[in-house]
């Protein structure tokens, strides 16, 4: 039977076989409340443990209530979504959930954007029976440089577990214990920092409560801004401008680059720069590296390992350091744009401004939580002074602006400061899946073939939404084979191919988060709505299309930087400031006793 006829709240409808009651009701405009259920349709990601029991409905002839999120429609089914029995059950279950949840909403970081809070409001919970005798399960707070786990607030929706294990295949989190004591934690309830967590932040992005939140650095940023001794400069990642508007009620996909710049300037940053500048720089270094390896390989050098992997995503870097340490010499040694920016800012630019390193504070605004961790890595510190002092997320920037009484909608458009604010279209598309490799291709093509792409700078075959994509680019007779993966689970598949010696790619771009940076763990919450991510991506490509310069190697300030300061790509100075090395962190998992 292909279609199924059923009745929901006295309305008849037909749905395809396999449709759940929840989805069928949605077609009728009946919005059954769901809490643990989460769906990212385009990536086949579904979290459906049937655990919260908030979405229950009455089905005629069934002795108990049915969870609508996971009950398939059957022919002739008669469903009621709003009987007193259902409403009483929903509210009572909600009371159960709240009875084991801290009531510190006023100071909770998730207040106002908390699914649980919204649901309590929606179901009209006013009181929890016998609250005085209700034990609340309590656990230790875990603070890492990027993510805070306050699992007293865990409601066992299992979304984080799904993201961490099924989507990202990181395996840092699992449900532990059973019954009232059960929660989701790393192995042995160790800190995230000791676990194989990559800080990709996808768990934070889907957590309905404040059980998982980002480590908030806004207070530190305000303190730095208020310190007259400090020169505080800021860099903003490409994906931020395509999503920040959502925090101020704008349509998804609104581009707010200019308004964001003026907001940052009003917040008191001495210079407002663009991470895109560093993205262009990354392309120069990474592009040179790709060409170098390709040429050496073509000349029969057997020590060259291919494919080369991109290295700008810190979640991804963490991932291979833990899970594939034997491949650690394959990724490009180029630092990520955030870190390239930091090291250039605290050397070249600090010298230019005549500011001492310790008096310069570099803040980054990122769509990402792993960037917080990356900025704290020892490799990126000089005399214990980090190249990037504080990394805040898109959400944190929005908070900061709201604290400063700013309404993004009302702000004028302004331009980035020079020189580190000048960027090309290639730098912008770093924010979406396939963008980095497209930017690299634009440059590599011209350098390899010696021919100009002219107006034809886009490579449509590199764009798209599939988790793993393969594409070929004709380099004037030489076919460059490119792989793209977003989401670490997809990355794992490509890495396993490499391990098994089956990989035929020359270069692979990997982004830890589904969709790339636009879907990062620090972005405004998309609540599982994939169309939001698509709109953000479109915005990124729109910005690229509107740029005068669209190839990194044509960025005039990049040229100037090399001429004035760095010398040659892959040269000694560049190597010192713009490259890094990777570590085998799998041993970290073993217990230090």
């Amino acid at each position, binding site marked *: 039977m292909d279609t199924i006829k059923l009745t929901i709240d006295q309305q008849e409808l037909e749905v395809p076989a396999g449709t759940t009651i929840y989805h069928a009701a949605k077609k009728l405009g009946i919005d059954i409340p769901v809490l643990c259920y989460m769906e990212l349709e385009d990536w086949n990601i579904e979290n459906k443990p049937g655990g919260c029991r908030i979405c229950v409905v009455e089905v005629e002839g069934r002795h108990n209530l049915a969870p609508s999120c996971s009950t398939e429609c059957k022919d002739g089914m008669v469903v009621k979504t709003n009987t007193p029995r259902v409403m009483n059950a929903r509210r009572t279950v909600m009371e159960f959930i709240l009875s084991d949840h801290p009531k510190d909403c006023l100071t909770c970081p998730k207040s106002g954007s908390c699914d649980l809070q919204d649901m309590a409001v929606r179901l009209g919970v006013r009181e929890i029976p016998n609250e005085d005798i209700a034990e609340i399960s309590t656990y230790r707070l875990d603070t890492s440089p990027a993510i805070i786990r306050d699992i007293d607030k865990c409601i066992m929706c299992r979304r984080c577990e799904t993201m961490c294990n099924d989507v990202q295949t990181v395996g840092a989190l699992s449900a532990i214990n059973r019954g009232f004591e059960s929660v989701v934690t790393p192995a042995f309830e160790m800190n995230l920092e000791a676990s194989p967590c990559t800080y990709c932040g996808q768990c934070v992005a889907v957590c309905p409560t404040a059980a998982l939140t980002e480590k908030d650095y806004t207070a530190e940023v305000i303190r730095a801004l208020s310190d007259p001794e400090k020169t505080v400069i800021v860099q903003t990642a490409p994906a931020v401008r395509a999503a920040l508007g959502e925090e101020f009620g704008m349509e998804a996909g609104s581009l707010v680059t200019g308004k964001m710049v003026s907001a940052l300037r009003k917040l008191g940053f001495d210079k407002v720069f663009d991470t895109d500048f560093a993205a262009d720089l990354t392309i120069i270094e990474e592009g040179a590296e790709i060409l170098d390896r390709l040429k050496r390989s073509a000349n029969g050098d057997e020590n060259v390992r291919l494919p080369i992997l991109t290295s700008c995503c810190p979640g991804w870097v963490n991932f291979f350091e833990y899970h594939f340490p034997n491949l650690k010499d394959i990724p490009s040694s180029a630092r990520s744009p955030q870190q390239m920016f930091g090291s250039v800012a605290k050397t070249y630019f600090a010298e230019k401004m005549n500011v001492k390193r310790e008096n310069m504070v570099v803040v980054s605004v990122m769509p990402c939580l792993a960037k917080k961790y990356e900025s704290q890595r020892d490799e990126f510190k000089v005399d214990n002074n980090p190249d990037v002092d504080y990394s805040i997320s898109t959400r944190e920037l929005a908070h900061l602006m709201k604290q400063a009484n700013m309404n993004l909608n009302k702000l004028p458009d302004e331009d980035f400061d020079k020189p580190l604010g000048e960027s090309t279209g290639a730098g912008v598309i770093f924010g979406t899946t396939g963008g980095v490799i497209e930017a690299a291709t634009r440059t590599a093509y011209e350098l390899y073939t010696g021919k100009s792409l002219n107006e034809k700078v886009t490579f449509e075959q590199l764009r798209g939404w599939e988790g793993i994509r393969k594409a070929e680019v004709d380099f004037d007779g030489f076919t460059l084979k490119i792989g793209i993966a977003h989401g670490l689970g997809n990355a794992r598949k490509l890495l396993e191919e490499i391990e098994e010696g089956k990989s035929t790619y020359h270069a692979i771009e990997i982004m830890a988060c589904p969709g790339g940076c636009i879907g990062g763990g620090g972005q405004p919450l998309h609540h599982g709505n994939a169309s939001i991510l698509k709109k953000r991506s479109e915005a990124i490509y729109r910005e690229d299309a509107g740029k005068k310069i669209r190839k990194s190697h044509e960025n005039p300030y990049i040229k100037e930087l090399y001429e004035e300061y760095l010398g040659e790509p892959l040269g000694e100075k560049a190597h010192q400031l713009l490259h890094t090395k990777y570590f085998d962190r799998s041993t970290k998992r073993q*217990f230090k006793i």
Partner: protein
Amino acid sequence: MTSVKVKLKQNDIDKIKEICAAHNYEPGELINVLHQTQEYFGYLPAEIQEVISWELNVSAAKVYGVVTFYSYFTMTPKGRYPVSVCTGTACYVRGAENVLEEIKKQLDLQVGETSDDGKYSLSCLRCVGACGLAPVVLVGDKTYGRVAPDDVKGIIDEYKDKD
């Protein structure tokens, strides 16, 4: 769940590897592997779980999630004389609760604890199937039936002078 920190010796690690190999490194055999490992070591501290996680290519979080789910697995070593009280329904109805209270008092242990000297540990069981003997207390493999709170001291005294 609290664990005891241990340093695994190379032959311990080899033993775990041997068990994993015997199960073909199948992730689906995790529970059987845990059973055999616990049988050998007496308990499953984090370090052992780490090795199993490596060998079976299962995340340590998952191994820990499984270990903490099943009451049969323990991360603390049992005492040399593990005392177990049956708290099945038949034993409950015949007064197991009072017996348990008395044992807690006598041993100065809570359920799930092991004494500092490693001599006794206390746990509860659900129905050993000797309902005719209810309430039932086990010390190691030895079964004591129809135990009254007053009998507890006598039972424990049997082990007083043993090591």
